[in-house]
Every structure is written in C-alpha cells, then in structure tokens.
C-alpha cells in the first residue's frame, strides 16, 4: 500500500490494483497472492465500523487473500464519489443517499445492510420530552436542513402536522439542545445522545424506526461494474465483514477496546465507544439476521424501504438491492 501516499495513486481501481500488486513485491507488506481493495467508510474511525476492524485484526480477509484498506470519511468526504471513481470497491452509504445518487446517474446497488433499523432519533430532555411522534407538535427542533425530507416523511407516516414544528437549522451538535435554543434534535441514536449521557446530561430518545421510518442504513454499496467484474472480491469482503460483526456482537467490550487501540490518534474514549456500541448493536441484529445472517434483507424489508423512500421523494424499485453476493458470502 506504499504507493497510495503518492499523488495520483488513486486514479482508477485498476490502477490502484496495479500499485497494490507492486506493493506485494515487498514481502513484509503482504503475501504475494493478496489482492488489495478499499472500503470507504462513511465517517471517522469509531466503533461504528468495529466489525471491519475485527475482520482486519483477526485476518478474516487475509484468510481469503484479500487486503482491505479502511478509508475514513469525514464531514466533507461523501462516500459516493470514491466508489463511482473506483478508488474504493465498496462504500458504506444509506438507502436514501444511494437512491439520490442513482437518480443522478450513479450505477449503485445495495449489496448488504448493516443497520436493519435506521439510527435516526429524536433526542430531547426529560423535562420536555418527545416520547411519541405527536409530541413533536409545538416543539422547536434543531437539525441540519439537509435532513428536512427525513422529518417531513416521518410526519407524513405518523400524521403529525409539520407546520406545527419549528425547524431551527443547527450544526450537528447537541449544544443547542443543552443550551435551550431548541427542544429536541434530529440526530443518530448512537452519537449525540451518547455524548450527552457521557457529559452527565440525562436525555430521552425516540428512535424513528420504531415509528414506521424504514430506511436501511450503513448499507454496503458497489457499482454494477464491480459486481460484474470483481465479484469474488466483493463476496470475500462481505464474508469478512459478517465474521467481524458476529465477533463484535459476541464480545462488544473487546471490539471497543480494539477500536481504541487500533486508532490511537483518533482521540477515542473507551467508555464512550462502549456505550455507542451498546446502542448500535440492537439496530444491526434482529430475528431476521439471526435466521439468515449479518446484513440480510428480504422482499418485505425492501418493500417497506421503497415506501419510505417514496415519501423522501426518491422513486426506486427493488432492483436497487442485490442480495446475490451476500447469499454467496453466507453460503460459502
């Protein structure tokens, strides 16, 4: 992977694979048969991707002759461009983002779903709580305006009058709620509420997925071209992910510790990471995944997604999803 620090090393995935092959000439870097691919994460390193770290640490990809670079995301690092450009074989996206990208001409399919339940949550303070969708009426909600379609769809699903909610544009930050500038926040169950709890601020959360908001999140996306031409690598990557996440579920404490140890420069706090993982795992595993394995989805869950996506203004068909790679991963 030495060449990847040079400019222009990521022009195309084929080029990238070629440089990866060059790196294998140095035996201490990788075994000769390893194929190098990249997984584009959707955010900075944290337990949000703990299963991937376990897969790398325990050699679940190396066992299959695959070397996976885990590229961190960030506030100005959309996942879709590097996947379209071929810099990353797979990206971590969400069904609504993917649907938007497909509408703009990106040839994506969703090949596995890490978060069965969407993590979007309404967080509030116990003195003035939002426990049910109707509680939103008359409240000031702090959120990024980019998420306006999310709130609107949620209100439609639950017969809430959107006009009776005052939307206050804020950064993605819990401070406006704590400072009393807003009554509630639209955020992920796994970050801002955890931050408040760690800071000693009691808070109430209402997970939108419990009230009909069905949008697959932390989805694995790949291009049609990759699915046609790099199928074995995709299957191997998914297989490693599934093994990693199953281990993570079995021992979340070890997973949190591994995350903190693996990224000493990321400024991660072990207690926070553990709490985050405790809230994240219930969104990822269900009866469905117990029966069929990590990342699974069915015609029914896809149909529910298509309905919610339509409310978000995204018209997609079931062919946005492709389960065949996951079937191979779990079958082999």
């Amino acid at each position, binding site marked *: 992977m030495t060449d990847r620090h040079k400019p222009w090393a*990521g*022009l195309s995935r084929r080029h990238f694979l070629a440089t990866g092959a060059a790196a294998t000439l140095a035996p201490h870097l990788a075994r000769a048969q390893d194929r190098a691919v990249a997984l584009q994460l959707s955010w900075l390193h944290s337990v949000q991707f703990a299963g991937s770290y376990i897969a790398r640490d325990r050699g679940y990809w190396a066992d299959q002759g695959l070397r996976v670079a885990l590229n961190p995301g*960030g506030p100005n690092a*959309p996942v879709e461009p590097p996947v379209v450009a071929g810099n990353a074989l797979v990206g971590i996206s969400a069904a609504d983002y993917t649907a938007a990208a497909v509408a703009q001409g990106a040839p994506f399919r969703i090949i596995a779903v890490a978060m069965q339940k969407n993590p979007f949550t309404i967080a509030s303070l116990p003195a003035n709580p939002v426990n049910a969708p109707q509680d939103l009426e008359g409240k000031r909600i702090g959120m990024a305006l980019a998420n306006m379609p999310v709130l609107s769809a949620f209100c439609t699903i639950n017969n809430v009058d959107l006009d009776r909610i005052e939307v206050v544009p804020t950064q993605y930050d819990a401070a406006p709620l704590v400072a009393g500038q807003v009554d509630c926040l639209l955020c992920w169950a796994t970050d801002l509420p955890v931050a408040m709890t760690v800071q000693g601020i009691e808070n109430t959360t209402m997970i939108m997925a419990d009230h009909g908001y069905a949008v697959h999140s932390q989805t694995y996306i790949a291009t049609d071209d990759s699915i046609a031409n790099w199928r074995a690598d995709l299957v191997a990557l998914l297989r490693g992910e599934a093994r990693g996440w199953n281990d993570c579920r079995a021992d979340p404490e070890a997973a949190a510790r591994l995350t903190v140890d693996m990224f*000493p420069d990321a400024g991660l706090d072990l207690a926070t990471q553990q709490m985050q993982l405790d809230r994240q795992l219930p969104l990822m595993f269900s009866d469905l995944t117990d029966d069929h394995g990590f990342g699974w989805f069915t015609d029914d869950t896809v149909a529910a997604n298509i309905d919610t996506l339509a409310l978000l203004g995204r018209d997609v068909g079931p062919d946005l999803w492709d389960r065949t790679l996951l079937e191979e991963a779990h079958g082999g």
Partner: protein
Amino acid sequence: MTAGVLRHRQAAWGQGGARALAIVAVLALWELAARANADSFVLAGPVEVARYLWQNAPLLTRALGATLQSAAWGFVWGNLAAILLAVAVVLIPRAERVVAALALIVFCLPLVATGPILRVLFGQGNGPQITLAALAVYYTTFLPLVVGLRAVPQSWLDLIRSHGRGRMTQLIHVRAPASFPYLIAGLQIAAPAAILGAMVGEFTGAERGLGVLTIRAMRALDVDATWAIATLAAGVSILAYGGFGALVRRLRVESPAVLLTPPDHRHRRPPWRRLADIGVIVAIALVLWQATMDLFDLNPFFAKRPGDVVAFLLTGPDAAAHRATLFAAYGETLVFTLPGYLAGLALGAGLACGVVLMPGLATTALPLSVALRSVPIVATAPLIVLALGRGAVGTITIVTVMIFFPTLVACLQGLRQTPGQIIDIFDTYASGRWRLLRLARVPAMLPAFFASARMAVPAAILAVTTAEWLATGNGIGSLMALTASTSDYNMLWSAIVLVALTAALAYGAVAWIEAQVLAVYAMEQTVRR
C-alpha cells in the same frame, strides 16, 4: 549606567508590564465568559483548556505534528505559486488581467466541491490537506506581492532602462528588494491561513490531525477538547505570525523610498479591449475546467463539465426550476455578504490606523486578532450564534471576523510604507499624529488597502457560505452543502459558477474604484510599462 539607558529600560519594563497586564485581563475575561456560559456547552475557559492540554499532551502533540506538516508543505507550495504568479504578472503586464482573474476563480472554489475531488485524485494520505492549505494561502500572498513589486520609483526603472537593461534586471535589482516588506506581510497572513486550511483539509477523510480531533470533540459535546484544540491552533498561529515579524526586524528591511510616479495617460484602454479581455478570461477558464477534468479522467457523476452546467441551467428539462432554486438561495446570500465585507474592511483598516496612532495597542490587538482569525470557524460559529443569534447580525459578524485580519495586516504594512523623509518633514513642522496619519500615512497605505479589499472579495464569499453551512442553514452555502446527501453535483457546479462570476464582478468593481483613487495617490501602481 547613563540616564538614557535607564529610561530605555524603564520603558521596556513598562511595555512588558502592559503586555502582561493585557494578557491577564484577556484570560480573566475569557474565564468569566466561560463560567457565565457553563451550562450551554459552547465555551471552555483557560483553566479547563490548560487542564485538557496537560492531560492529553501526547495525543495533541501527535495531532499537531500531523497538521503542521500538512500546513508547512501547503505554505511552501502555495507561496511558491504566489511568487511565480506575481513575477509573471510584473514581467508580462499584458497577462495580468488573465492571471489575476484565474487566480481569483481558483481561490473561490468551495471546499465542498474541491474536497471530494482532491480525495479521489490523491487517495489516502495528506495530499488534500496540503493542497487545501496551499489554496488557502497563495492568493493572499500573490496580491500584496504584485503591489510590492510595483512600489518602486519610476526614476529607478528609467535609470535601468537608460543602461539598456531589461525587465529582468529591473526585477532583480529594484522590484524584488522593494517588494520584500509586502512579501513578508503576505507570508504573515499566510501562516495562520495555512494551519486553518490544513485543518479543514482533514475534513475530507484524514486519519489524524487537529481537524479530526475538532470534529470528534464537537460531536462528543467535549467543549474542553474543542477549545483546547482551538487554543493550540491559535497559539501556533500567533507564534508563526510573530516569527515572521521577528524575521523582518532581524533583516532590518530598508525604509521605503519616496515614490514619485507621473501620471500616464497613454495607456487608456478602449472599452472594446476590456470586453475582449473578459472574453479571453472566460474562454481560458472554461477550457481549463474541461481539460483538467478530462486529463485526470474524473468521473462525470461528481466532476461536472461546463456542458453539464449549461444543460442544467439553460437547455435541459427543468432548467427554469433549477435556476429558480439557485437564484433564491443566491439572493439570501448576497444580503449578508455586503455588510459583512464592508464591516470587515472598516474594522481592519480602522484598527491598523489605531495601532499606528497608539503603538501600545499593537501588543494586545495584534495577537488577539491573529488568535481570532486562527480559531477554526467551526468552533467559533456556535459561540457567535449563541451570542448574536442565527439572523443577520450573527452571519455578518462571522464574515467580518473572517476578513478583517488580512485587511489589518496588509493595512499596517501599508501604513509603515510612509517614506521616512516625509515623516521627517511633518515632524519638522511639529504636526500632530492625526495630521500625519491623514495626509501622509493613509495615502501611503492606499495600495495595500485596495489590495486587501480585492483579496477580501473571495474571502467574504467563502465566509458567508461557511456561516450558512454551519449556522443559518440558508443561502447558497447551505445549497452547496446539501449536495453531500443528495449527490446533486449539477447544482453544486452551477452554484460554483455563479459564485465565481459574482466574485469576479465584485473584484472588477473594487479594481475600478481602486484605479480611480490610485491614479491620484499612487500612480506607480497604475502605470504599466
């Protein structure tokens, strides 16, 4: 010990004492403000900041090292590019309009557009951070340097020409030494900007650095960490700024000469030449845009070409709806930009005059200004919003904060360009400080002031779009940030074109005013030969 030395020492002690007192006062105010807002989780005081810095020293040291490395490379490449561009402009005056316009357009490219493209081009590593740091500095060095390279007496150039030597000799023996103080002023502005640029570059998916830690701290509601990192970034920026100041004093830059350039009316440009210039600039910009994207084989999904934007805004289906969305957001943005721009310029120039009138002010005002400018806007924006609200005042304040500092530094440097002989004459007649300022120093400052007024045009636009993205959620900044979730890259590139056009027009307007004023006060800046 003579009485004179003693007096000198007492003065030095007095100055040192005043400085220490000012620092203590600032720290006390900061701590009080933090205590008063303790419940709102937006500001941590110096005590908490010191505790966090102490407890997390190894982590912060590594992060600072990573960020400074990117910033340093960006500083080198950005300033090198600025020097080459400035020299090209002076050697080939005919190229000035084109080079300046293209430099402006590149400086206007918003982070939401460049970040993902740079990440795709460079892959992992610190390529995007270095590039964004370089982009953050080259323009603010380029503009003052061009002014400096022209700040030479016409008679000296005539002398060289009478010896049969050309532009190269002029450059080496006359222009380069004259431009040196301007270059240093540019580098002083560049140092904090490079650090900020590197931090923002880390938002594109970096593994480590102060920017990465800032994002983490803000999400975690960890105000101690947020302000500790901000303090660290500001402290290093102040050191870098002060370092260049010390360098100037060490090098004992020669005092500026009297510039007497006669007015020159031979070079009046006919209107058709100006229109032709604009046409050439637009054509070159479009060709460069298309060619760069084709050369690097950038995927048209996110790297839109000129043809895509034309189709999106003019010829394609729904073009009218796209235009309506774009211009509605554009209108919201314009309302806030102009007041912030004017306020920033006035504050920068006013503070510069204040520092010249009362040199004691410099000891507190300058470090405070550097600090204010180098604290990342992502950390200050919530504070400004809490204090001033999400409306006009908050946004205008953010714009003002972002542009007053480069103006201050450039104007200070300009004020110091008053030739010593002229100050001596005023002293001889026992004129007051105000009279000296009004009649000698301010006219000497004008070229630098106008350079910073031009420089502030793209800075104001960047500031207002940042504020819209982070705080207010409306206007063109918010529209561009939306593309991250909607993949609407046609809208993003259309917005970029509109923003670049606006910047170019505003720049042209400022340059026109400048030409009228400098034709009276600083002819050497307007004569091209």
